[in-house]
């Protein structure tokens, strides 16, 4: 009897040790596989290893570990992790195993995690239970995920449009506080203005409206794109803009001139506000004061060829003319320093004669990765919606 008891205890201990070791080993495998996927590099290198890692994860059931792996991963790695997640979910469904719903909800609520992973978790749960939308979305208005924000804003717009004018205004204002997409902002602004409210869309999106512009410089046959005229050589040397400076331009001496745009979407229309000099280029410069070092996105829309320098460093250039223009057409990640940051934009017009090729303009804003405005230190209100007259 006593020997039997000892034997049973030994067996139990062995099972516990084996289970613990096996669990730890499985956890190590999962962690290793995730690390492999996180380290995938562009160019197609190492895809065989990545495939094996997905295979290994597919039967692991480790949905949360994989989702957590999204944070800080490259866009390429995120796509591998997404595929691993979908493979796991497929395998779990095939085995009739339930997903860890509460843990996934907790993950969705954790704003420090990857917005893409949180959205993926949300959509996976929503496929099982549509009620999760009503439960989670109302709290997503200021979420780091633009997709969550969009849903939350859409819900408020829907509420506001069903309400009487007086009751609708605060709902629209609340919606505006989270809106980062142009179509929603347009819809909200229109409703608010109809209700007698003042809406500063420029500030809401963080468009830069005050510029110093100089030109025209020669861009006949589109050759000026590659020519470094004095304003850009000066900027590249890190020298500040000299407002009194005079340079040789395309049609004679040119000087910096202050140009302000009052367009809702920050469009500085060179053709209308200055002149549509065909085969020319202009430089536009402005400063932006940051309270700290920070990474932001410069988002630009222009149908013209362009180059952009930030603090004298060329951050992107693109030689394409008249292939459409839109807000946020280009997203350029940029590091800003504490204090004044100098932006210099080169905007080039060619000599095309078609009606659709006459635009000579740009719109530029500074925002975070959600598309939410990042404002310079001198501006206080993040979302400027106040009562007053129509604009």
């Amino acid at each position, binding site marked *: 009897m006593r020997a039997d008891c000892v034997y049973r205890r030994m067996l139990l201990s062995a099972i516990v040790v084996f289970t613990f070791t096996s669990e730890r080993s499985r956890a190590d495998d999962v962690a290793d596989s995730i690390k492999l996927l996180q380290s995938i590099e562009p160019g197609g290198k190492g895809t065989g290893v990545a495939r094996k890692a997905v295979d290994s994860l597919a039967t692991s059931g480790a949905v949360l570990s994989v989702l957590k792996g999204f944070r800080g991963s490259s866009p390429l790695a995120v796509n591998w992790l997404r595929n691993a997640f979908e493979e796991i979910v497929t395998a779990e469904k095939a085995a009739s195993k339930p997903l860890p719903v509460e843990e996934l909800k907790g993950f969705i609520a954790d704003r420090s995690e990857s917005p893409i992973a949180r959205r993926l978790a949300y959509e996976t749960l929503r496929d099982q239970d549509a009620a999760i939308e009503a439960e989670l979305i109302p709290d997503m208005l200021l979420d780091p995920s633009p*997709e969550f924000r969009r849903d939350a804003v859409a819900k408020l717009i829907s509420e506001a449009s069903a309400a009487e004018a007086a009751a609708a205004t605060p709902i629209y204002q609340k919606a505006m506080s989270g809106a980062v997409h142009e179509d929603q902002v347009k819809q909200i602004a229109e409703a608010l203005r109809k209700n007698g409210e003042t809406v500063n869309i420029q500030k809401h999106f963080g468009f830069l409206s005050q510029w110093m512009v100089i030109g025209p410089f020669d861009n006949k046959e589109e050759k000026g794109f590659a020519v470094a005229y004095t304003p850009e050589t000066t900027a590249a040397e890190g020298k500040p803009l000299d407002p009194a400076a005079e340079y040789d331009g395309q049609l004679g001496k040119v000087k910096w001139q202050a140009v302000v745009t009052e367009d809702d979407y920050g469009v500085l229309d060179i053709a209308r506000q200055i002149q549509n000099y065909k085969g020319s280029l202009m430089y536009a410069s402005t400063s932006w004061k940051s309270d700290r070092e920070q990474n932001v996105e410069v988002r630009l829309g222009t149908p013209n060829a362009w180059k952009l320098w930030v603090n004298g460093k060329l951050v992107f250039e693109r030689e394409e003319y008249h292939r459409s223009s839109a807000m946020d057409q280009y997203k350029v990640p940029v590091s800003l320093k504490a204090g004044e940051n100098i932006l210099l934009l080169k905007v080039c017009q060619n000599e095309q004669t078609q009606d659709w090729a006459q635009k000579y303009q740009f719109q530029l804003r500074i925002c975070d990765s959600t598309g939410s405005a990042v404002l310079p230190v001198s501006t206080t209100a993040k979302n400027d919606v106040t009562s007053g007259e129509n604009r």
Partner: protein
Amino acid sequence: MKRVILGISVLAAFAACDSSFAADWRQFRGNAANSVAVDESLPTELSGETIAWKTPLPGRGLSGPIIVGDKVFVSSSSGYGQDRLHVVCVNADSGEQVWQRQFDATGRTMTHDKMCNATPTMASDGERVYAFFSSNDLICLDMQGKLQWFRGLGSEFPNASNSLGMSSSPVVIGSTVVVQVESDAEAFACGVDTVSGETKWQIERPRAANWTSPSVLPATNDQPALALLQSSKGLTAVDPETGKIVWNFEKGASTIPSATVSDGAIVIPANGLTAIRPSGGKFEELWNSAGLSPATPSPVVIDGMAYVMNNAGVLSAGNTSTGERVWQLRLKGSFSSTPIAAGGYIYAFNESGTAFVVKPEADKGVVISELDLAETILCSPGASNGGLYVRSDQHLIKLANPK
């Protein structure tokens, strides 16, 4: 001699590894990229009865369906910025979704409103499928949806994009996926290894916006299969294994409809339509016809006739021996979709979703039947095993004779 062996081995490889190849529709405009469904018998009297099934699709798409065995594959894109990429696999018999995989675009997703990120049609080699998007994301999945490799050509080459959107569909030749990524700001073509996803070769291309897709010149006894890359400068024949240029047609060409190969000749949308016959690393110009000028749809060539659709929805038929226009038929509406030829009929879909079955006769074309599917259709259809497959923004649709 080496090339003879290579040519034969390419053909043999197709035949040996997959007997269902002929019945499949594995890329934009079919296996031979010529819009001809060989030995297919599709319904000619279209009606509600011939809608075998209609399956909802996520997001939007201009990409056409491809068919491999009993599976239909199609890509879509969704989200406010068209940055969510979808690859959907549907059972060809039932229309039920077999699987769907999603990815996030790594390149620019902006397109003209009419286009969207999922504009290029997918391709397959029978073992894997290759989805390409306007954002220049090239994704390889196995037939069960498992990721084989992912190339973010949009992030690797951030200036190779077009704010109106990119539309060039990949082709698979042997063990190479050939893609054209051509814009005003940066332009290249590359051959990507079908298994590893690594770049075998990359060549610079004319820096200009280009929406055409590569075509395939099949292998002959003295020449392995070649990739035909079209641009505003003309047509370039490239060895798909090495990227080496074999010959160049330099008289300019369209940047929207793509060249079509038939019976060893190539019909190029160039100065109207121009036919050439390649041989031994060179080519001979056969004819040019300004009266046959394709708009967005690519030419369809079969049985000695070339069919082109113009901007006004007029289908023109020309003799491929002379380039002479033989007849014209005005259909209704505008067309983005390239028609296909099957069983002696031409099948065309206009942008508002009306399908036309045209019977080409010696001196005229006759509309045999038409069916209004009432959904925007911009893609080029696919055909396999008696089914005609087409996609709208909302649905994947199969047309077939009732069982």
